[in-house]
């Protein structure tokens, strides 16, 4: 749960000068909680309670609770990715490849945490938090949500970009042939090249780190298991020996079993507070890569349209010179194309600008996220080590008694 502070002009319908705003900081805080398994067999799914606390006027009242499922979150993410090109959309946990009715308690908790982090990142992002889709997600009743979610094939599919795509495919071929270019057009920006290279290499490093973290979780579980087995075996040995030696064995066995539980607990802590943040980091990098694809597409679009517009202009001049009757029509088409070309250029530049801001935010956020993850990791390891030392230390007086008897 992160409380947000107001940025200037964050809310279009609220006047920053109004008395209510100046008295209290606008905030929007969301909690994802209470996972519940619904449905049976193959149609089973997990539902979550999403609690929104806010004083923003667009929202209905101080607190609102809705029920949402994973695919609702996916809907929101997709809508945001569609509308806010250039922004690194906060990542979602992956779709599970395992059968839904085999979801373990651990998996459910991991997913709940990831969804909570996702929605809070959206709610605290200066641009994304103004999204109407976010408001729908947080406020609308379940039927409305379901209708919105299943309305995939609808008006949302027909975008100007689609038409442009068609246009581009035809025109770019012509352009390539005319201008003698066969390669796909890409930005040549050394800074951006460096960024791309950085992001791709970073993903590799992080994937490796996440793998090791996951392995460390497993090792903790394994050590816990073998301590438990060892404890049991030592206890049986003690029962066989009898006397004070037997008692010493029995105490050792009990302590082993006790520490086994501590190890299992630490394994869970490691998973939720160290491994998951690393996985989240990987997902964030993948989200950046998605934005890079958007940027490349936008670049190509504006480039193709610019080239096509140039050709159209040349053609228009020719027609006007010849005083052709097609000149009027050509001029109209040229003006339309020019407008679209300028729009495409604007879109591309917006992405570039947003990305440069987003990168700064990303780096800062990741430093904070990793710092916290490391803190939790170290805390857990220190606590575990102390528990181990204390547990074994408590046996020393008992052992002394054994050897003196």
């Amino acid at each position, binding site marked *: 749960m992160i409380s947000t502070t107001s940025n200037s002009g964050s809310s279009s319908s609220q006047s920053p000068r109004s008395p209510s705003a100046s008295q209290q900081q606008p905030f929007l805080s969301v909690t994802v909680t209470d996972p519940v398994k619904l449905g049976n067999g193959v149609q089973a799914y997990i539902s979550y309670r999403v609690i929104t606390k806010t004083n923003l006027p667009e929202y209905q009242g101080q607190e609102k609770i809705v029920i949402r499922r994973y695919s609702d979150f996916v809907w929101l993410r997709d809508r945001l990715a569609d509308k806010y090109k250039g922004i690194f959309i906060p990542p979602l946990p992956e779709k599970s490849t395992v059968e839904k009715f085999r979801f373990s308690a651990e998996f459910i908790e991991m997913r709940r945490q990831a969804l909570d982090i996702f929605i809070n990142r959206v709610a605290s992002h200066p641009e994304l938090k103004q999204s109407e889709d976010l408001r729908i997600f947080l406020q609308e009743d379940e039927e409305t949500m379901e209708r919105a979610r299943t309305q995939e094939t609808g008006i949302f599919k027909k975008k100007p970009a689609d038409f442009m795509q068609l246009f581009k495919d035809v025109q770019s071929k012509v352009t390539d042939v005319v201008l003698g270019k066969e390669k796909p057009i890409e930005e040549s920006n050394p800074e951006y090249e460096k960024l791309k290279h950085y992001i791709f290499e970073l993903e590799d490093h992080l994937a*490796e780190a996440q793998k*090791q973290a996951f392995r460390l979780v497993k090792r903790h579980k394994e050590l816990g298991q073998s301590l438990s087995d*060892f404890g049991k*075996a030592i206890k049986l*040995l003690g029962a066989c020996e009898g006397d004070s030696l037997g008692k010493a064995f029995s105490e*050792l066995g009990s302590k082993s079993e006790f520490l086994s539980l501590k190890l299992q607990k630490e394994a869970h802590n490691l998973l939720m507070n160290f491994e998951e943040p690393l996985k989240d980091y990987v997902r964030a990098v993948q989200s950046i890569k998605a934005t890079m694809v958007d940027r490349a597409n936008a670049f190509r679009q504006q480039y193709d349209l610019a080239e096509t517009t140039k050709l159209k202009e040349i053609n228009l001049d020719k027609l006007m010179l010849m005083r052709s009757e097609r000149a009027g029509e050509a001029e109209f088409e040229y003006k339309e194309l020019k407008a679209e070309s300028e729009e495409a250029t604007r879109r591309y530049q917006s992405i570039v600008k947003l990305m440069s801001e987003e990168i700064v935010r990303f780096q800062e956020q990741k430093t904070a996220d990793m710092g916290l993850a490391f803190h939790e990791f*170290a805390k857990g390891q220190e606590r575990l080590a102390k528990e181990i030392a204390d547990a074994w230390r408590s046996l020393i007086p008992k052992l002394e008694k054994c050897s003196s008897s």
Partner: protein
Amino acid sequence: MFRELRQSVANDWGGGRPPAVDEDREFLERKEKMQDLEQQLSTASQQAEALVKAQQDIGETMGQLGLTFFKLGKFETEEALYNSQRTRATDFKRLATAAIRASRSYRELNAQSVKNLDTLHEYLGLMLAVHSAFSDRSSALLTVQTLMSDLSSLHTRAERLEGAASKIFIVDRSRYRKIEELKETIRATEDAKFCAIREYERIKENNRNELERLDRERRVDFLGMLKGFIINQIGYADKAASVWAQVVEETSRYAKERE
């Protein structure tokens, strides 16, 4: 004791080899305890090996994690465009250092654990010697019982021959010779029986002493093993706690930021 032997021979009056069953209750209890001990030792020995392996694995993974974070830190340092990156690179390296140190502590602990818990494997191995001591005793007893059974049938034959001879008034030289031979065999067998009994007693005495010594030494060694194990674990845990406490301190500002 002789009563017991006679008893077991009497039980098998039909001759042949009696089962080598020793009815010395104290011994039987001890033997059962040894068998039980061997089984528990075997299990404990296995689990000890598994424990050492698990410790080794976690230490290794911790080390690999440290290495990965060290590389990440280096990468971020090289590519840093923002201060947040440089800060993160430092954090990565701090964690890496701690993880590698923790990994080293695990390795030390493991080397010590192997030596400690070796005591279990040793005593499991000694069970073999206990086995052979028991089987020595069994065969000695079997020898005694066999000889007694032989003796018994020899006596029976001698009685039959003498009985038959006394009914015939003519002196039968061949039968007389047979009786004499038989008496000679009986004397030899009696001698052998006394030797076997002496040998059996000697083995029993040895066994008892050895078992007592085994119990005494095992008790001392096992206590030493427990102490050593615990002390090594404490040593590792104290080291690990201080390594991680340092990182907790160095990253404490991130915790506060969240609150």
